[in-house]
């Protein structure tokens, strides 16, 4: 049967309408991208560690605040100081149902390890959510009343003051080196396996001071066994307001121990925006402030995808500089 002009016209209209619908639909769909299956949250550290607790807190709050139609599946991929889990996410380009906990150690780690380990450039930065402050802590009966006392002692007899911290090349060690440079001193840095071992060594009087995060020393501080004398932050920390920063004590440095969220590379901006908004709404919730920040004694630091990228890039430069200084990067 031959088609009448009318039919052709009608056909064209229908076609156009359909096309328009498709385009609109696509646009609509893009604006409202939603996960269609459970989201894998990769934690590149062992169960029970700081990153694991962080991931599980996010999971709990996203669930209780009903911020995501799909559930999170937390997957611990420990090993290689965080590089194995991080690299596995970097090797899943375009996977829209995958997230990664991302902390400062995952920026400094690959620098020291070198080839083969994924860096932040191989991932998509989603948002930064919090930061952990680095304090210098001494025993209550320590002769060091202030950070100036410690520096004076270190200047008087260089290389005798002992400061404990976590493994060489990690946050505590880098922070310690920044302090040494800013104060122009040399201390004996004693590396331990974990934060728990550090505080134990301090309480036993085996080291004169340690680097620690509030979560690691506040219980002992409450019992008046230890006291913090300085914090490596740009301003004083609300929880421990009496403790001066290194900056105001005359030692010009600060250190960012941050906790964020990343995603695999090559995912579309809509997807990033979706997770970004979700994380923003989560960090604004009271549950986040009470059940995570307050409980674990962290400070809020929300940065969106773009700002986090710049922030991480800035930190990578600082880390690379210190690691070169201590001879871990040739």
């Amino acid at each position: 049967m031959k088609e009448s002009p009318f039919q052709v016209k009608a056909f064209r209209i229908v076609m156009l309408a359909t096309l328009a619908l498709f385009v609109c639909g696509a646009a609509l769909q893009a604006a409202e991208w939603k996960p269609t299956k459970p989201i894998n949250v990769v934690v590149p550290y062992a169960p029970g560690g700081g990153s694991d607790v962080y991931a599980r807190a996010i999971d709990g709050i996203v669930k209780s605040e009903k911020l995501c139609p799909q559930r999170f599946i937390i997957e611990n991929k420990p090993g290689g100081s965080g590089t194995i889990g991080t690299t596995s996410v970097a090797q899943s380009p375009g996977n829209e149902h995958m997230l990664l906990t991302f902390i400062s150690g995952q920026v400094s780690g690959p620098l020291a390890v070198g080839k083969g380990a994924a860096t932040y450039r191989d991932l998509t930065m989603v948002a930064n959510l919090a930061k952990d402050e680095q304090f210098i802590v001494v025993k209550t009966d320590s002769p060091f009343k202030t950070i100036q006392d410690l520096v004076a002692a270190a200047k008087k007899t260089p290389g005798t003051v002992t400061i404990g911290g976590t493994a060489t090349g990690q946050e505590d060690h880098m922070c310690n080196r920044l302090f040494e440079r800013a104060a122009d001193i040399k201390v004996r840095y004693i590396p331990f396996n974990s934060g728990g071992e550090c505080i134990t060594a301090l309480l036993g009087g085996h080291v004169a001071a340690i680097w620690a995060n509030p979560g690691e020393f506040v219980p002992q501080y409450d019992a008046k066994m230890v006291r913090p004398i300085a914090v490596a932050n740009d301003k004083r920390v609300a929880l421990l307001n009496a403790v001066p920063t290194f900056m105001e004590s005359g030692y010009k440095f600060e250190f960012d121990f941050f906790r964020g969220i990343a995603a695999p590379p090559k995912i579309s901006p809509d997807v990033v925006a979706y997770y970004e908004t979700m994380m923003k709404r989560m960090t604004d919730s009271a549950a986040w402030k009470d059940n995570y920040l307050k409980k674990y004694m962290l400070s809020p630091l929300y940065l969106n995808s773009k700002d986090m990228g710049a922030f991480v890039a800035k930190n990578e430069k600082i880390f690379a500089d210190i690691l070169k200084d201590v001879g871990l990067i040739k």
Partner: protein
Amino acid sequence: MELWNNLMMGFAISLTWENLLYCLAGCFVGQMVGVLPGIGAPTAVALLLPLTFSVNPTSAIILFAGIYYGVAYGGTITSVLINVPGESSSVMTCLDGYQMAKQGRAGAALSVAAIGSWIAGTISVVLLMAFAPALAKFALRFGPPEYFGLAMMAFGLLTVFGGGDPFKIIISTLVGLFLAIVGLDVVSGVPRFSFGIPQLLGGIDFIVIICGIFGLAEVFNSLEQEEETGLLKQKIRLKDMFLTWEDWVRSRWAILRGGVIGFFIGLIPAGGITTASFLAYLAEKRVSKHPEKFGTGLIEGIASPESANNAASISGFAPLLALGVPGSPTTAIMLAGFMMWGIRPGPLLFQNNADLVWGLISSKFIGNLLLVLMNIFLIPLFVSMLRVPYTILMGFIVIFASIGAFTVNNNLFDVWMMLGFGILGYIMNKLQYPIVPLVLALVLGRLAENSLRQSLMLSGGDFSIFFTRPITFVFMTAAILAYLTPVIRWGLKKTGYGGKGLNVESL
């Protein structure tokens, strides 16, 4: 009296139906987790942590404590039955336990482990209850120099293997030390012998090595033998299921000695359950009148390390409860748990949360009792597994060891490594190299190396740090004496004392 009142308050809490159920659940999960090689107490506790958001903290901590010491019971079963240690703390149990199983005495081996664990565990709870704060303070005196002294003393105990070829013992120890070196070095921050393979950065996991070197190697060995029957040649009689009077007489002191050693090693942060079981076994061998029979199915060889690991798993709570510092990976996770429930464990815990502390301590009495009953009743079931023809059992051993190695890091690479260690274990068996020195070096190598370097960093390179502190001094002296025993022994033989009824080997 105050102690008694506190304990009664604790029982009033732990004997509620709800808490009894949590205790039972914890013990049961612990027992199961203990049986599976790859999943240890830290993983189990971490995985269950999010489920306890809505549970009250006392119940949650009772549950977790149950898992923690339940694991020490469960790890025994596979060690005895199939030579695959379910938990790293049960490695030493393989040595005599598996031999006993081959002799048809698996039931006795399992019951002495359960009863020994119960006795040592209960004594441990009593000591913990009475002296936790003082004990925790004592534990604090252990710094890097003390750890080094302890490790040196433990290596010294290896000289009890005097009967074997000293050359082979040294080679085996060195292989273990080398394996402990692999990975990112904490002190220098540099990866060692990792050949750019990211999976090796974190070091080779202990579980991966022992699954291969014990379990898989056993399969390779048995492939050569034409056995169509089960491990058990004779029919199991009910009498073989349980301890005879003679067994009890032989193991009672071993249980006590193991318990005491375990208790003290467990107290020390970084001491650990595995180290405790090693030292107990070696010490038992040292005091024994017939050290050469260890490893051939001696009941003391099971009683001692099993009592030690259980005692250690309980005393490990002292630093956590009294000071808020973790003494082991599991207690570190519990620390995170406390924070999740809104409790800050720390020096003030005994004052601020007395109900939680005493509820927990009293639940340990109950949990240990539940576990010993659970284990005794299940023994016939476990033992009947041995009737399975070995050709089929072998398959299970391979599956078990592979799952164990895989679940450590969810990584297939570890399974291949385990295969490699299986071959190594087989070769060592063939050439009659002892495996214990390798495993001991693996457990203590990293501790010894790190603590040596940390001590020397603390002292600025001065070795006198190892002799000027009282605890280290005692350890180092004991270690040096132990190293000298072979020389003294040789000297005594030379001068003829050996022939005059003096048991030279027992030195």
